[in-house]
């Protein structure tokens, strides 16, 4: 692969870890994920009494012979998973303190997870959003689709204000079936609107995972001299002496992080606060392991 956000060695090490959905999925094809419907897999689910209209082919005749009652034998249905990666491409994602930019880190997470998903037979789609732009790569299980996914991801140039809220609402409405929605953003948007969007996704029964990306400099806010801060999104400038406002800044940031985390929890989203200096492998390993059903731990 020619994309610099793909780490082959990392992917091969993570290859053994499956990506599990926390909710049953409704896919078009058979897969490794649970389906809310009863299907014809090998895994027995339950017996239930026959009701008129049931397919008589599914009657368990052996039980009828023993009990003289009609029972229908039901099996778990396995289906595939469709994942949507929503990448915030607002100007603020372009911020890089002393290391990697947030968008670069988001690319790595999205690409790695997408590769793992396709590799295990699931579909991965991409949605890149700003206030002016909404790029979309529909989900697909085909390996060749990955190249399109990566190319689109690599071409993302963060600018302008965020279009995350609209993008989430759009995805919630557009995707008919349950899906795994992975949001990669710094969530620098109105928290009430964010909450509405997340609740919308929850209402549509999507499995939502949120990677809250922050730069270490944004968290630590340590500077030794006055700075002129220029907003990456709208170009607003402000001269400030960081030492004198650090306390208030950190208080506001703490409130934001706490609120965002609470909103994600309210919407049953899997929330991950990640700083861009966090090594990728332990982060993804922890993320994937946490999603495994308890029996598979």
């Amino acid at each position, binding site marked *: 692969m020619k994309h610099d956000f793909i780490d082959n060695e990392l992917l091969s090490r993570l290859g053994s870890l499956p990506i599990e959905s926390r909710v049953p999925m409704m896919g078009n094809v058979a897969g490794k994920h649970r389906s809310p419907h009863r299907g014809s897999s090998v895994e027995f689910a339950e017996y239930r009494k026959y009701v008129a209209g049931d397919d008589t082919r599914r009657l368990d005749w052996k039980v009828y012979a023993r009990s003289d009652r009609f029972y229908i034998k039901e099996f778990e249905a396995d289906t595939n998973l469709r994942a949507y990666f929503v990448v915030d491409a607002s100007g603020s994602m372009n911020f890089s303190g002393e290391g990697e930019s*947030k968008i670069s880190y988001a690319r790595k997470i999205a690409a790695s997870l997408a590769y793992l998903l396709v590799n295990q037979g699931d579909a991965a789609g991409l949605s890149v959003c700003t206030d002016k732009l909404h790029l979309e790569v529909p989900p697909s299980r085909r390996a060749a689709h990955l190249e399109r996914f990566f190319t689109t991801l690599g071409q993302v140039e963060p600018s302008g204000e965020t279009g995350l809220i609209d993008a989430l609402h759009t995805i919630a409405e557009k995707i008919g079936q349950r899906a795994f929605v992975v949001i990669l953003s710094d969530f*620098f948007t109105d928290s009430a609107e964010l909450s509405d969007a997340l609740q919308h996704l929850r209402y549509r029964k999507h499995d939502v995972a949120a990677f809250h990306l922050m730069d270490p400099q944004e968290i630590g806010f340590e500077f030794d001299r006055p700075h002129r801060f220029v*907003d*990456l999104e709208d170009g607003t400038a402000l001269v400030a002496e960081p030492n004198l*406002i650090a306390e208030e800044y*950190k208080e506001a940031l703490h409130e934001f992080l706490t609120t965002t985390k609470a909103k994600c929890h309210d919407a049953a989203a899997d929330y991950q606060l990640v700083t861009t200096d966090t090594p990728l492998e332990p982060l993804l390993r922890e993320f994937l392991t946490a999603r495994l059903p308890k029996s598979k731990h």
Partner: protein
Amino acid sequence: MLFLSPFFLWGLLAASAPVVIHLINKRRHKTLQWAAMQFLLKATRESRGKRKLRNILILTCRALAIAALVAAAAKPIVSGMMGWGGGSIDTVVLLLDRSASMELRAGDGLKSRRELILEKVSGAMSSLGDPRLVLIDSASMEPQEVPSPDVLGQISATSATDTAADFPAMLNRAAEFLAGSTGRSEIWLASDLQASNWKPNDERWIAAQASLSAMAKTPSVRVLSLSGSTASNTSVRLEQIRRSGDELVLQLELMRSGAARGTTTVPLTTNANGVKTTENISLPGQSITLQKRIALPAGLESGYGWVSVPADGNLRDNVAFFAFGPARSRESLVVSEVGESADYLELSAAPTGMENLQTSVVSPAQAVNSIAPNIAAILWAAPLPNGRTAESLEQYIRSGGHVMFFPNGKKTTSPFMDFSWSGPQESPKGQFFILKDWSRVDGLMRDGVDGTSIAGKKLLAIRRQMPVGDLTPMARWEDGEPMMTRRIIDRGTAWMVGSIPDYKWSNLGDGDILLPAVQRVIAQGADRFDRSYLTPVGSESSMVTRLESWSRVDTYEDAMPVKSLHKSGVYESGGQVLALNRPADEDSIEVLTRDELNLALNDTSYTLFDQAGKADEGSLSKDVWRAFIIAVLLFFLAEALLCLPKKSRFDAMPARAGA
């Protein structure tokens, strides 16, 4: 508030440095593309008021710390009236010490103490809003209004003099002056704290304090001292002058300032009747007493001159003037019955070959007619006088005469004045009364100028009588009884010697003690004749020079000498010459101690400001600058506390949801 080093106040400009640095720092900011702008805006909005206040406080603390440091360096002095005690002053009475010691410079290249103090006072007056300034100077003692503090250093009433100062009298004068005033007033005593000028045990202090306390508004008393380190200085003083025929004998004392160490050479210039000679005098230690003999032209009736050392730290103590009259014989009188002791005393008073010494022997009965003012000394080897003789003798002593009393073998029944003789004592058989000790620096048995001591141990006595009365022992027998005593009575002196030059009494007649003692008593008695040509500046006898007939004749300071009532010099009127010198006390280096100052100004709650902070005791000084140093520390402490980063409550990131 008064600053002793006001040029340091230019440093106050440095107080603006923190503000300037802050402004410069604000301008040299770095531009940073920032994402989390919403929190920055919120933080700025929320902290604007607090931050501004904190910023202002920090900058204020820094500026004040620098200002306080500068103010401390400028050596502030402050009084209750001048400083934060508040209140306006209507009148300041300045008691200015114009004595010769005030001309000592505070350091090499610096101004004299008097000039410095005038500058300080002038500055202080300006800071007080120029209240009424009344000057009482130590020379004239007359209150006089000073129109403006700016001219303080230029008026004649503040110029240098060779007088001494009398502070108890000056304070009394100030109290008299302020007695009728109603406004708030202060009395400033500007001095070098020379102990002889302050006379701390003088009873007039009590009177002055009582006068001040009785006033409706008791004036505050401030002592502005300029003691402490000084420029190197050597002084010359004329202790004694004696004309002996065609020779003039000057007894001089050379003194160096207290800090001087080792031996130095001082060129001593003598100008006698226009003849100038210079010789180098080796001065080991702090002082030396020396005799200077000047040969006079034959037949010279009278004359004058001066001895001087080069200009140094104090220009007023570099010269001693002298004047002399015609040579006169030294007449003495021996009052005794005819006998061995009378012979010895006569021989001691006028040894053979000493033509300028004349003596006559009279019986006690004839003494009353022989006691005359022109007699240098009287040797009284007879019963103590009474009646008219006693009156005449007492008058002789009080007017400056010297009398040496010897016992007559009988206990005194009626004392002369208040002293008498005890009964005679015989030494145990085969033993003698021997001298144990005697004063080697003072009195008739003192060591000679060259250090040679009197052979007192050679005196062997078998009979003695002890002087009784309020007398100062100058020599003692081995058993502690006085052998020789002294009593100074007004200008004269009475000496009592406990044995007589008679073989039935002692070997006093051998001359080891008797001859030098008798010669010294005659010399001291004769000094008053030569001393009539000398007088200290400011003394009553010096006041005759104010008369127009007197004119100054010496050319020490100027080829055209200026007559001044308060300056030393040689004055002449109708053939009579008079040399005026600064008072001997002005050469004293003794400085008032804190206890003595407390004693003198006990009831005035005075405040002392010492420029040097070394007025005998370091604690004498009012350390106002220390308050400023403490303020500096407090400001820096406050600044440090304000700059301390707050311990953030939000350092930790929220735990990851999935963790």
